[in-house]
Structures are given as structure tokens and as C-alpha cells.
């Protein structure tokens, strides 16, 4: 009988000391999706066309913030984060981008994105992520007075106005 009591006690002690599970939001969890853009040929909209040395800057409070993974790469698709505190994101897309003594060199094109955000509950550890709907795109800055200035980007096409995952492109940009 004493044996069974010992087992019982051990179970109790294990329960008391070990049953608090730590909640950590791991990398495998769903995160707020980025907007996926693919670049296509302006003359043949079905054909992918890479942008030479693309550098993308986020514009926040008149300040340019370089997206670290898009710092002069030649690519035909990118994923960019959307701003969560307001429903508008402004970007400058630089073609033939280079940084010389802190000065940005290259051909720029403004990208203005407008959307609605929906908070989606994930878990205790991760809390909420954002999903985006009703996406609209301007290839110029609509806040600048006067006729829109479009540079190297000749057009766009919204493939999917709902940004819930990064598995497929949401916007095609023609150049």
C-alpha cells in the first residue's frame, strides 16, 4: 500500500511543479501577411520581367525607410509589409537603386496603397494578426497636387484585393 501512496504523492508533486506550460509565439505561427507584388512586362502582360536593382523604401512621416530585404536586388517578385496603425502605406520603388554616401540614386516611382484592416485572433501567445481587404493601388502619390507623375511603372493590376497569406501575388506591376 505504501508504494501506491508514494506514486500518488509523486504524481501530485509533478503536477504542482510542471504543469505550467510556457506560452511562446513560435516562428511557425501565422503572422501578419505581406503584400506580394510580381513584376510583369508592359508589352506582354503575361511575361514576368525582373526589375534591375530594385530598392523599396517605406515613406513614414516624410522619412524614407529602406526595406532591408529589398535593397537593390534584381527580382520579379517582392513581398512588402503594410502599415498597421493607419490604413494607408506609401512606398518609393527605386529602379537601378544604389546608395552613394547616404544619397539614394536611381529612378523612383511612388506606390500608394489603400486598404481596410481586419484583426484576426491567432492564439494566447501570438495574440492578433492583421489581414487586409479592399486593396486599392495608385502608382503615384495622390496627395501631391497636380497631374500624377508616373515614372518607370506603366500600370498595375490587382489580382487579389484580400491579403490573407503570401502564397500568391496580390498585385501585378507592369514596366
Amino acid at each position, binding site marked *: 500500500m505504501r508504494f501506491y501512496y508514494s506514486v500518488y504523492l509523486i504524481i501530485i508533486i509533478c503536477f504542482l511543479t510542471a504543469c505550467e506550460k510556457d506560452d511562446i509565439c513560435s516562428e511557425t505561427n501565422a503572422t501578419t501577411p505581406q503584400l506580394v507584388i510580381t513584376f510583369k512586362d508592359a508589352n506582354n502582360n503575361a511575361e514576368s520581367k525582373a526589375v534591375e536593382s530594385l530598392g523599396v523604401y*517605406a515613406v513614414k512621416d516624410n522619412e524614407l525607410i529602406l526595406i532591408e530585404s529589398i535593397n537593390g536586388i534584381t527580382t520579379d517578385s517582392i513581398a512588402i509589409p503594410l502599415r498597421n496603425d493607419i490604413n494607408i502605406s506609401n512606398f518609393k520603388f527605386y529602379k537601378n537603386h544604389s546608395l552613394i554616401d547616404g544619397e539614394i540614386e536611381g529612378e523612383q516611382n511612388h506606390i500608394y496603397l489603400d486598404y481596410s484592416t481586419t484583426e484576426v*485572433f491567432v492564439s494566447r501567445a501570438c495574440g492578433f494578426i*492583421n489581414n487586409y481587404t479592399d486593396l486599392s493601388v495608385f502608382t503615384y502619390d495622390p496627395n501631391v497636387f497636380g497631374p500624377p507623375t508616373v515614372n518607370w511603372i506603366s500600370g498595375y493590376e490587382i489580382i487579389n484585393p484580400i491579403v490573407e497569406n503570401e502564397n500568391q501575388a496580390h498585385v501585378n506591376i507592369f514596366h
Partner: protein
Amino acid sequence: MLTSFIRVLLVFTISANVFSQENTITSDSIHYKQKYGLRVGIDINKLVNSSINNNYNGIELNADYRLNNKLYIATEIGFSKNNFIEDYLDFTSKGNYLKAGIDYNMYNNWLSMQNMIFSGLRLGYSKFDQNINSYTIYDTNNQTWGQSFISVPIENTNLSSLWIELILGVKAEIFNNLFLGFNLEVKKMINSEIKNNIQNLYVPGFNKTFEGSSFGVGFGYKISYLIPIRKK
């Protein structure tokens, strides 16, 4: 650390009391009368926790009534208010709960003693609010725009949950009619109403819920007093 030490100490004192009566004499010809009555008590762990933990406030009262030699009907009624501060989430769960069911004494007492090693079954019901006080949008790509912290609360009121509970515990009479007990609870959620697609993270009485699982755990340290009604 201190609280868990006290817990372990408590367990030992309880067990020492119960387990010291191992050499049961089964062939006793004299019939010792057993007390029957209403036993009422309070959970001391929740009481202590409420006074030392700023994020917790709770109380649980319990009562049982002996039906026969082995069987008791038992109930717990409680209130709890918990505030949890997680990495991306700050929320409060607040509400009342009621558990009702039976306790079955598996221990053969010696003479007129009335200690218990028991297993119990309960049906639990809780009515509660779960409010998200503030949260940070989880975004692994926030290096560009910065983190987005939202302090507009999301209030989910009048939620309810129903669960069943298996209990394993001990109860020892430390003084005349005064009992000290410890028990473990394993719970299985039957139905939990959610609002705004937000999982119920903590249900009063059921305790913490686990992702992808309907099980929960809990324990109680109870002090209770037997009001004897009759002897037989």
C-alpha cells in the same frame, strides 16, 4: 517558490495524517458510529493567492453532504478575476462558476475516523466575461513600420462554458470535525461559447484552456468544517 513549498508541505501533512492508519483491522466486531452531516469549507490556496497576487482575485466555497458510507454529494461555488499579461496580449477573465456532483470515498477508515481518499465527478458551469484590454499586432515584418499597439479594449461579455471534471483527492480530519484536503482536477470542456472569434483563454473554474485541446487541469486546497447532523 514559497507557495509551492507550502503546497508540498501541505500535501505531506495531509498524507501523513491519512496514511498513518494503514494497519486496518478488518475483523472488528464493534460497530463504530460514523458522523453524517453537511461539510462546508473554503479553498485556502485561492484565498492566499488573492492576497499576494495582484493579478488574481478569487474565492471558492465548497460543501458536501454524506449520503452513505462511501458516497457524498458535493458542490463548489466560486468567483475569479484574472488578469494575464502575455507577450502580445493583455486580457482579463472574470466570472462565477458552479460545480456539482459526487465524491466517492475509496478509503476504508479505521474505527470512527472519517478521512478520505476520494475520487469525484462534477459538472461545471461558468458565466464570465473575457476582455482583451490591449494587444500588439503580431507581425514578424515590423522592422519597417514598427509595432502596432492597440489599447482599444475588445469586450466579450456574458460568455458561458460547460465542462465535466474528474477529481482525485484526500481529506484528513486534523481536529475534531475540521478537515484539510487537497485535490487534483482534470477537466474536459463540453461546450464553450466564444465571441468575436476569440478563443476563451481562461474560464473561471475550468482554468486555463490549451490550444487545440479541450482538457484543463486544476487543484484545490480546502479547509472545511463538518456540521454533524446524525450518527450511524
